[in-house]
């Protein structure tokens, strides 16, 4: 009895680890369940150029931090001859380039490839509190701000509505208080800066966020958003209409009211963003992602093998699946076949020949082999030499079919070369013995059984999605083992037995 628990525990362990592994790969490494799932990779190129003034130049530029919805896959800084350093400044990351003797028009590049995170997470930074530095400078502005705050507060319920209404009020040309505050600030940045101060006045911590929209194009301009901290998380607001929420194609680049770059000792500095999009196979993307996450698992993946070997394993890993199908056909249906796993090997050959051609070629080769076998019977050869002759005839036969097929322009005929000839030879020998000992009917039944089993196995291992699943998720193979173990203890009737024992059904 403990034996039985043993099996149950083993099956449960295999199922759990198989499912767990698959879940981990899908959710944390982003391996997709469908082979053709596509994901977008964005490549942003920031090009900072300037005219040199024959004196040392120092340029700094904010670069994104990738804390929330996006993940950087690859970052590159192209600046030949420059000293370079990356600094963390408050909540911004910045790159500083410096050079002693720049010449002519110089160009510096920052290129980053990024993709969406599979497990988006809220940044776990401590939220800021409102600071004294964001104050209005004159008493009259303070007064106007106080009056505006009162007005807005009376019409709103919480931070969400307060900020939205504040943005709309500032855009309202007929509001005197708003116009007074905006006085010198007509640009978007100016307006945002006023808004931050207004919100600070209302004791709401707020920041300006510059985000780059992920749209293909050159000279893409960053856009301004306001974000407020509600004590738990950042809330984003569109500075133009007060709508809440950052669209998911916006990449936050830097925060604060400073410009994106500063340049000392240069003339005509310019910065342009150009953005391109790549659609890549999600499996490949998962692989790139996994590279960034050093884990024993991604190291120990079939994807780390050379491509040629990977292709071999893509085929090999369908074998357990095929074997599972055969187990099912034998244990539950009761199909009789030549040899246990012969149909799996034939099914693998069918993958190359396609089903109809496969069946035709298999029947052709087997029939010719059988004819030769019957002829050889008269010569009374010993078993092993006879099998050797049949094997050779099978090989020749395959060669002739390939040549004929090629000459007739049917290149499918070439794929006959992939048939497992040793297996075919054994099948021919077994079939001819059954033919002699038990009659043609049983031999043909068994032959057909093998062909049916091979066709069903082929149909299943040829499902693209299953091929993808067994290759991409080793956990699935563990689940296969669990299923095989369970079938190993199945003691119920086979479908064929329901017919066989019909005389006993009362």
């Amino acid at each position, binding site marked *: 009895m403990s034996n039985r628990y043993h099996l149950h525990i083993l099956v449960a362990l295999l199922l759990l680890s198989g499912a767990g592994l698959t879940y981990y790969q899908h959710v944390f490494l982003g391996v997709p369940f469908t082979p053709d799932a596509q994901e977008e990779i964005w490549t942003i190129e920031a090009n900072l150029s300037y005219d040199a003034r024959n004196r040392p130049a120092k340029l700094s530029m904010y670069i994104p931090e990738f804390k929330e919805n996006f993940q950087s896959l690859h970052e590159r800084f192209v600046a030949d001859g420059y000293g370079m350093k990356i600094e963390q400044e408050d909540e911004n990351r910045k790159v500083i380039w410096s050079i002693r003797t720049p010449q002519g028009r110089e160009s510096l590049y920052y290129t980053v490839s990024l993709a969406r995170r599979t497990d988006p997470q809220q940044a776990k930074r401590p939220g800021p509190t409102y600071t004294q530095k964001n104050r209005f400078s004159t008493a009259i502005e303070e007064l106007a701000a106080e009056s505006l705050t009162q007005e807005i507060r009376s019409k709103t319920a919480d931070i969400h509505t307060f900020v939205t209404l504040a943005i709309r009020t500032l855009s309202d040309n007929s509001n005197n208080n708003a116009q007074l505050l905006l006085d010198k600030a007509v640009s978007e940045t100016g307006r945002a800066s006023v808004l931050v101060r207004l919100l600070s006045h209302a004791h709401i911590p707020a920041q300006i966020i510059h985000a780059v929209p992920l749209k293909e194009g050159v000279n893409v301009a960053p856009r301004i958003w306001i974000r407020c901290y509600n004590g738990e998380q950042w809330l984003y607001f569109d500075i133009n209409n007060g709508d809440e929420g950052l669209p998911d194609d916006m990449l936050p680049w830097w925060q604060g009211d400073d410009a994106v770059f500063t340049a000392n000792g240069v003339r005509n500095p310019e910065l342009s963003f150009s953005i391109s999009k790549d659609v890549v196979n999600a499996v490949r993307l998962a692989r790139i992602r996994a590279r960034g996450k050093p884990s024993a698992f991604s190291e120990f993946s079939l994807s780390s093998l050379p491509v040629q070997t990977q292709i071999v394993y893509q085929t090999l890993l369908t074998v357990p699946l095929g074997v599972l199908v055969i187990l099912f056909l034998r244990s539950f249906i009761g199909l009789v076949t030549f040899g246990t796993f012969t149909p799996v090997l034939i099914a693998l050959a069918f993958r190359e020949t396609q089903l109809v051609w496969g069946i035709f070629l298999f029947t052709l080769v087997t029939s010719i082999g059988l004819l030769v076998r019957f002829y050889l019977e008269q010569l009374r050869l010993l078993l092993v030499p006879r099998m050797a002759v049949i094997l050779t005839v099978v090989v020749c036969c395959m060669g002739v079919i390939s040549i004929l097929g090629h000459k007739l322009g049917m290149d499918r005929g070439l794929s006959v070369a992939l048939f497992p000839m040793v297996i075919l030879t054994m099948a021919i020998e077994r079939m001819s013995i059954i033919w002699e000992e038990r009659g043609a009917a049983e031999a043909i039944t068994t032959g057909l059984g093998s062909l049916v089993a091979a066709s069903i196995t082929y149909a299943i291992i040829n499902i693209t999605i299953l091929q993808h699943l067994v290759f991409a998720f080793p956990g699935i193979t563990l689940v296969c083992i669990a299923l095989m173990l369970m079938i190993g203890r199945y003691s119920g009737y086979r*479908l064929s037995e329901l017919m066989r024992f019909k005389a*006993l059904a009362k």
Partner: protein
Amino acid sequence: MFNRINQLRRQGVLSINARNANYVLRYNDRRMYPLVDDKLKTKHLAIEHGVSVPGLITHVDSDSAAKRIAEILSPYSDFVIKPAQGAGGDGIIVIQASHNGRYIKTSGLAITERELQHHCSNILAGLFSLGGHRDVILVEERIRPSTVFEKIAYQGVPDVRVIVFCGFPVMAMLRLPTRQSQGKANLHQGAIGAGVDVVSGVTQQGVWFNDITLTHPDTGNPLSGLQLPFWDDILELSARCYEMTGLGYLGVDIVIDDSRGPLMLELNARPGLNIQIANGVGLLQRLRRIEKDFLPVGKPPAQLDLAQRLAFIRANFGLAH
């Protein structure tokens, strides 16, 4: 479909999967398989245990000896040639007479000395053995079937198949060769199986392939109502094969020789299931009964001697019950 499953369950019909998983794998120690798979070993073991078997003329295990087979067999006019590890009666040739270098089979057809040699080399090369291993040729004395079978046997030698479970002969049938089976007593090849009341030894209805038949297809005579001779000896002989091999789930094939009586022909570690159709009774109910009474879970099995086992069978498994 589920209805049929329920019906078969109610009848206690043993399925292939259940036989393999719950009986063959559980009660048959794999190390003992060579004892039954190799007929030469079975024979030596049987002689050692005093179980009567058909006489062994000789065995041949070399190609040079196979070439001289005619010379070796020249003193004998009738004999049986069989592969030691053959299955399903394949590769067995029964010669009833030899005449001028030709050997006459029981079917009446003659084969030449060369054909006999070729057959022997095929046996040695493993053509008939499971897995194609090199094999040994057995030459046995020919059985002369008891005359009681004349009406219902077509050529060949009928035999009695007894399923022995842990020493209890739980079910039996008489296997009768037909024209279809070409003289072989194997049900898969078209032989008839007639159910036998394990208590009285009287034949019942028969099974041909998977269907019930009441008459022999070649002779047309009814199958039922025939009292098998030496029935008690047959039961005892089969039951003793359990002690001999240690295999808990065993098919014992017994032939009844006209002069020597019941002889153990061969053993089978995974006997077929159509015996259930021949008897119209499921094996599972009988196996379960014995497991319940004598093989309690987690306790050592009850030790019973031969007489006690046979008494239990007679008291419980008669068709009258």
